[in-house]
């Protein structure tokens, strides 16, 4: 416990602090990007992308081993991840557009088969017994243990870049999220903007893979934005709150994982963010469950006792 509190206060040693700060930056980027993905209703498309990274990671490892004699270059693996994730996204849109299957089915198909292909490749690598292949396991569930300083610095830097990009594009995102037709009429290229958004989500996924793992990294782009939605109705505030919550949750979660034994990083970060979400769900003043129940009970009482009067605002009636 003392160790954990120390870590929170940046007293945990260079590596731990670096990991925590990197996680916070990643959480901020994930929250910010995820807020706009949520507004554009693309939250689960990102799930397909993240699962589709696995085959790319393993293939990159194999190619690296074949060409360079050694597969464990983070930049190489992440490039592979990005390529197959992009491919997965493309296949998803293709299926939804060209067949009678809808987007949910397309996402499920890509998610499961790409991931399965990754698992097959993983077992190929294991049976070939290539050096360093045990480290690939870490991409499944995430692990910051044994993370090299260079890797942590890369994560922190990349996350900062993504956060910066989201910040730079925030006005375009906000206008498009609110009213796509209006934005298009004002000359915003909504197709390209959507594409940019998905690229940024992909970037967060790829950056966060090592720390949080394939399955859970997507939570960084979903849970903080949904939490933020409970606290505000305005897009700009929502993105800011999501980024803040994402950063805080990741910071605390990474700290816990580093100081308490047997706590896998990705899982802990997600659970911390979920705890914040659950509290918000219960207690948020306008949209929280408690507040909504109180308002509903009041309405029911008014109607049943005949004291309710309609607001005289609509249609002049």
């Amino acid at each position, binding site marked *: 416990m003392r160790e954990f509190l120390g870590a929170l206060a940046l007293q945990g040693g260079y590596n731990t602090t670096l990991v925590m700060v990197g996680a916070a930056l990643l959480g901020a980027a994930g929250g910010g990007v995820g807020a706009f993905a949520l507004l554009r209703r693309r939250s689960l498309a990102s799930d397909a992308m993240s699962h589709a990274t696995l085959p790319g990671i393993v293939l990159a490892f194999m190619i690296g081993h074949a060409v360079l004699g050694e597969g464990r270059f983070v930049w190489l693996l992440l490039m592979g991840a990005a390529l197959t994730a992009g491919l997965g996204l493309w296949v998803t849109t293709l299926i939804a557009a060209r067949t009678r299957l809808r987007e949910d089915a397309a996402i499920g198909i890509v998610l499961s088969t790409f991931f399965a292909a990754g698992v097959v490749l993983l077992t190929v690598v294991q049976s070939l017994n290539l050096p360093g292949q045990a480290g690939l396991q870490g991409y499944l569930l995430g692990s910051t243990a044994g993370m090299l300083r260079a890797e942590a610095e890369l994560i922190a830097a990349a996350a900062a870049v993504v956060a910066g990009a989201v910040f730079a594009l925030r006005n375009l995102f906000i206008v498009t999220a609110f009213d796509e037709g209006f934005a298009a009429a004002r000359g915003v290229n909504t197709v390209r903007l959507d594409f940019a958004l998905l690229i940024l989500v992909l970037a967060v996924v790829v950056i966060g893979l090592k720390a949080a793992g394939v399955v859970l990294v997507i939570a960084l782009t979903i*849970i903080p934005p949904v939490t933020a939605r409970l606290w505000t109705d305005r897009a700009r505030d929502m993105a800011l709150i999501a980024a803040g919550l994402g950063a805080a949750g990741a910071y605390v979660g990474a700290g816990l994982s580093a100081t308490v034994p047997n706590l896998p990083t990705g899982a802990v970060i997600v659970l911390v963010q979920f705890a914040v979400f659950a509290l918000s769900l219960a207690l948020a003043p306008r949209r929280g469950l408690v507040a909504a129940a109180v308002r509903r009970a009041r309405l029911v009482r008014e109607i049943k006792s005949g004291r309710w009067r309609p607001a005289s605002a609509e249609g002049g009636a």
Partner: protein
Amino acid sequence: MNEFLQFSLVPMAMAALAAIACALPGNFLLLRGQSLVGDAVSHVVLPGVVIGFLISGGASAVWIMAGAAMAAVIAAAAFEAVRRAARVEAGAAMGVVFTAMFALGVLLLEQSNARSVHLDVEHALYGNLESHIWLAAENWAALARAETWRAMPAEAATLAGVAAALSLLVALFFKELRLVSFDPDFARSTGMPTGVVQFAVVLASALAAVAAFSAVGSILVIAMFVCPPAAARLMTDDLARQVWLSAGVGAASAVIGFLAAGHAPLWLGFQSTVSAAGMIAVVSGLFVLGAAMFGARRASRA
């Protein structure tokens, strides 16, 4: 041949049964646009299974199934609460619930491993099909003896039971399932309890996921929920035929995938095999690809 009976027959049959058990409810999820419920179910059962396993010390399939069913119930309730209160789309609400529950499952796995309770993370994720050997089946003659069958791996019997039960339920309640999937408002107007029917589909999915869990692991169960029904959907306009086809595609994926995983690497000069579960899911995806390119009813008309 003896090797086949002892080492391949049961895993192949288990994989086929798992595929069928998942494909059957998967058809109705697909038609309701709820394919991702299959994704969610296969993630949320993880904590339920781990808790059931821990409570019963790993001995009781009933506790594990009960844990999974509880997890599905909790997830369904949480999903509704999130969707209404936060007023976000179904996909996002589902994402919150299933990532959190999956994270809980992963955490419990790690913690229980620390106490040396044997639950392997890898196997929980993508199964351990090849381990279900049936040494008692020494030759075809042995199959005639009752004690050979009694020595069959227990998970195989569970899968057979679940697949049979689901097949029976789908057959018995076919017209109700069809009606609720097509027009739940109208169904409710005739007095049918549509909420119960829809929840029953989710519960059936959870039980299929848990039964399949031991064969193919939680993450690959979703392939079985989505791919065989999707392939079948692209091939026919008749719902009954679609359900049959989905079971057929599922079983075929299991057999082809298992054989490919076991033998193809040897043909290519490798020494050992690759993940059977992974190969099965990939094959099911190839079926979808084939149906998308050549299926009789692949284009949308509505």
